[in-house]
């Protein structure tokens, strides 16, 4: 008898564990239980705007792991919409990683026509298409709004022989192998392209000869500090602590104007240094393809309202982001222009996919 009681208790315990683990894994990602609709299939029924939209929880998606830039952006949006009461339904964040965002892009096609799915993306959305990682592009999404931009910065270690961006460019002109450029993203993605866009404008030829070294585990800053590489291309907000402490020295940033205060505000822009180019690490929100009109309108309004709140302005300051709000239409034409400019560079270094 006693044994049976023990056994029952154990069974309950085991079932409890199973439930806990299901809940936990559920928190990481909502299961895609909705029947998959083929992207090219019949477009969804005429968009009848439900008067109470959104009635159900939204699915917010960061197409990469927790803790990264995408994750930080969309979680901040969700938090502020909730705190200010602009949106009242829950907006849990799912991290759907893989393929530099491509896995989520493919998943978004299955969600075509739905009104409860919003993902965050940045330049890699265009780059993974151009370099052939995926056939899908920004045209297979519904751009909702561009929200912020971060800028790329080029920095060296404390004891570097380079004290301004010109010296780096001159060295590269003399010998493209002389400066080892490091970044976090894979070759042909953001950190690499951002540097090449600037180098091209500075008159460096043989862009494909420049050595770019990817440290995908995020250790690139320590590699620079240890003197193992010569220059780091990364977004400014990622390393602000090391810049303030003086461990890293920023030679130039890619913004059209200076951003931030204190040490950060003293970083010259490339334009000031006579290199007439900018690079924006923009981040914006995207719905699935064929997102119903009422949902697009709703989120356009909501996001336009959000960017005017004090909470959002405070988040911009604390994260070192620049306000870059563009509405859906403006965002779309921006994407077209950005796509062309990335395309040109990838073509030049031979990484453009056919």
């Amino acid at each position, binding site marked *: 008898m006693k044994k049976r009681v*023990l056994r029952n208790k154990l069974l309950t315990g085991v079932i409890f564990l*199973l439930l806990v683990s299901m809940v*936990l894994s559920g928190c990481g990602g909502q299961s895609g239980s909705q029947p998959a609709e083929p992207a090219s299939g019949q477009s969804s029924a005429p968009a009848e705007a439900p008067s109470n939209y959104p009635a159900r929880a939204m699915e917010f998606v960061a197409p990469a792991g927790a*803790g990264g830039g995408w994750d930080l952006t969309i979680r901040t949006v969700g*938090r502020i919409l909730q705190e200010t009461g602009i949106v009242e339904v829950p907006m849990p964040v799912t991290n759907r990683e893989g393929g530099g965002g491509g896995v989520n892009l493919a998943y978004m096609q299955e969600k075509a026509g739905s009104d409860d799915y919003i993902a965050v993306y940045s330049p890699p959305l265009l780059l993974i298409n151009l370099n*052939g990682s995926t056939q899908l592009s920004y045209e297979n999404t519904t751009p909702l709004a561009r929200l912020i931009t971060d800028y790329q910065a080029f920095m060296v270690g404390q004891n570097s022989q380079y004290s301004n961006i010109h010296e780096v460019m001159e060295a590269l002109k003399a010998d493209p192998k002389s400066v080892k450029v490091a970044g976090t993203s894979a070759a042909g993605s953001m950190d690499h392209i951002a540097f090449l866009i600037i180098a091209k404008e500075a008159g460096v030829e043989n862009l494909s000869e420049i050595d770019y070294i990817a440290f995908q585990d995020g250790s690139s800053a320590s590699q620079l500090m240890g003197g*193992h590489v010569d220059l780091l291309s990364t977004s400014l907000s990622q390393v602000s602590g090391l810049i303030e402490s003086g461990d890293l020295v920023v030679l130039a940033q890619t913004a059209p104007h200076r951003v931030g205060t204190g040490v950060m505000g003293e970083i010259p822009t490339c334009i000031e240094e006579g290199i007439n180019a900018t690079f924006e690490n923009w981040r914006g929100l995207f719905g699935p393809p064929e997102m119903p009109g009422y949902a697009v309108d709703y989120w356009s309004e909501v996001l336009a309202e959000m960017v005017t709140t004090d909470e959002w302005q405070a988040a911009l300051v604390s994260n070192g982001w620049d306000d870059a709000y563009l509405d859906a239409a403006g965002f779309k034409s921006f994407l077209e222009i950005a796509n062309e400019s990335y395309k040109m560079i990838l073509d030049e270094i031979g*990484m453009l996919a056919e």
Partner: protein
Amino acid sequence: MEALQHLIEGFGVALTPANLMWVTIGGLLGTIIGMLPGLGPATGVAVLLPLTYTMGPTAALITMCGVYYGAMFGGSRSSILINTPGDGAAIAATFDGYPMAQNGRAEAALAMSAIASFIGGIIAAIIMVFVAQPVARFGLRFGPAEYFLLMVFALSATASMSKGNLMKGFISLLVGLMVATVGIDAQSGVQRFTFGIMELQGGIDFLVVIIAMYALGEVFGTFQVIKEGKKKMQTKFGKIWITKDDWKKSWKPILRSTPIGFFVGALPGAGATMASLMAYNNEKQLSKNPDNFGKGDIVGLAAPEAANNAASVGALIPMMTLGIPGSGTTAVMMGALLMLGLQPGPMLFQQHPEVAWGLIASMFIGNIILAVINIPLAGVLVRLLAIPPRILYPVVMALAFVGTYAIAHTVISFYILVIFGLVGYFMHKAGIPTAPLILAVIVGNKMEQSFRQALTISNGSPAIFFKSSVAMVLIALTILSLLYPVVQSKLRARQMQKESEVAS
């Protein structure tokens, strides 16, 4: 001593009732999460993210660290009881922990794992108080060439994981290295072995391979035993504690493994899995009877357990002192800190000493609380062994699938899971050890990338691998580690010969 004074202030922060509560809740949650296959500290911390917005930065960081240490304690519970590591860092605990449980010594194994974890964690926290900055600065001397050599050194542990048959160990290793090449190559942006499958672009997650090889492998393996009616269940349970003899054997290995774990953990991108395997390898080579390793030697459990907890403390160093996340878990924690408006990095100790030192103090408290939670908890958990296999194994199977989904959120990973489960089963049948394969999947990608990064930096000259003193030390260690077993067995053979000569 300035550090001590700061630490005392830190205790003032960490010992407030609210923070004590958070570290306890975090620790308990972490222990449970750590036990479940696939759900490691990174997932645990990520799940907590929304909750931490409402807390202050100190409370948030302390809670997340509670989860982190908890998962380190919990990860090895399932290694010992059902041969299924909760995450990578707990693999080494299966080597001797599971055989101990099979020998009817599950209680001692669970107790030793908690004790070793506790000592490793506490000593690492003490080291951290004094040398966080110098260790972080020393870590900077590891460039790609040094990382490559470190990975090679880690792989030399294959020899000790091969249970006598080196050739089979190397086959396993090579298959693992091949698996590690799947995905987009970061240095060239080229896709390798992805067969047009988007989900493979990010590579094959080593956690899925671990779950497949161990959880599924264990289920497939025992299925046969159950069918033949040979599976024995443990129904009587003793007290969760170790014998004096166990302690006498283990205290030195624990003390030796802690610094290894701490230092390897503090290198960005090395991690607790490597630390625990290195500690295991090290003890096996120092042992007087290495043949007992893998058969339930308590030293083989104590060493990696101390090392992986020490590593989890060490892993916080690059994040806190440089603002560079050294592991998946610390990357998530750093994201949370950024969202709370804190910039981890060299200025953290000056700008927010209460956060930095509060966190360090919470390591001491967290480790004590976790040891207190874990001993009685083990008394409950050990009764898992009394669950009839027909109930236990379907549950393990379900957990394996749930855990896999939690890692990747894709259906493709289920196929990967099943394929590797079958591979693991047949390897087991053929007497090929699976641990080298898993080790290779874990370090293979980083090893290859480091190799190519180094050669890009040196414009193709291999001289870069012999340039620094760190590199030379690593080369020497690798050679020593490979030669030692050979020399040792030769010496033993000679001694035996002498003895037999004397006898005759």
